[in-house]
């Protein structure tokens, strides 16, 4: 979707190195999310943000941190990458706009980042 972009699309990194994934939206939506997708586990929430500098943990947040200094950007950082963090990472925005969460709109997803930690 043109309103949300992720970078990079692919990345290979070494164990122990820091990695930052970027999510950028042009929709001015309040809610942004980072998920990881693994076979047999579906999509699991890592962290989400409900506004600038407002973030909260998801179910698999250990080893990850996030930052949101501007409405349009949501960064995911792996402080010290491990092989268990090899995954496909998706950013998503909720279609609720700038208001409270509204389940009607579902998510719009970025195109994903395939991260391999060797």
């Amino acid at each position, binding site marked *: 979707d043109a309103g949300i972009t992720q970078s990079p699309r692919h990345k290979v990194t070494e164990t122990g190195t820091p990695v930052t994934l970027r999510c950028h939206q042009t929709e001015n939506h309040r*809610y942004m*999310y980072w998920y990881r997708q693994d076979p*047999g*586990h*579906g*999509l699991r*929430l890592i962290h*989400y943000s*409900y506004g600038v500098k407002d973030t*909260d943990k*998801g*179910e698999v947040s250990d080893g990850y941190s996030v930052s949101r200094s501007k409405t349009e950007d949501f960064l995911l950082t792996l402080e010290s990458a491990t092989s268990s963090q090899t995954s*496909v990472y*998706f950013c*998503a925005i909720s279609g609720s706009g700038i208001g*409270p*969460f*509204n*389940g*009607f709109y*579902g*998510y719009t*997803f970025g*195109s*994903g980042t*395939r991260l391999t930690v060797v």
Partner: protein
Amino acid sequence: AQTVTQSQPEMSVQEAETVTLSCTYDTSESDYYLFWYKQPPSRQMILVIRQEAYKQQNATENRFSVNFQKAAKSFSLKISDSQLGDAAMYFCAYGENTGNQFYFGTGTSLTVIP
């Protein structure tokens, strides 16, 4: 946290036939939303269909329709006249206005056989 269960990791269907993908969910809420997302090999997540819990009528979008059974907490996706382009991973998702996120099932991989 709400749970969403997709009990069929893999399904297959002959081209032009009909297939039904299953999804069940657990909730104590009466007002919520259910979705099916499609993920083709391109990896892009695409919204297929949405169902509002307060609507009794089952949602339809062209060849895609749902069977929403609120009391049974069941939300299955029916794909009619299956096409090769329907081959993908399908995810069921649940969300509610009083929450702040959606919950996903583990996915069903659909193969379409020519």
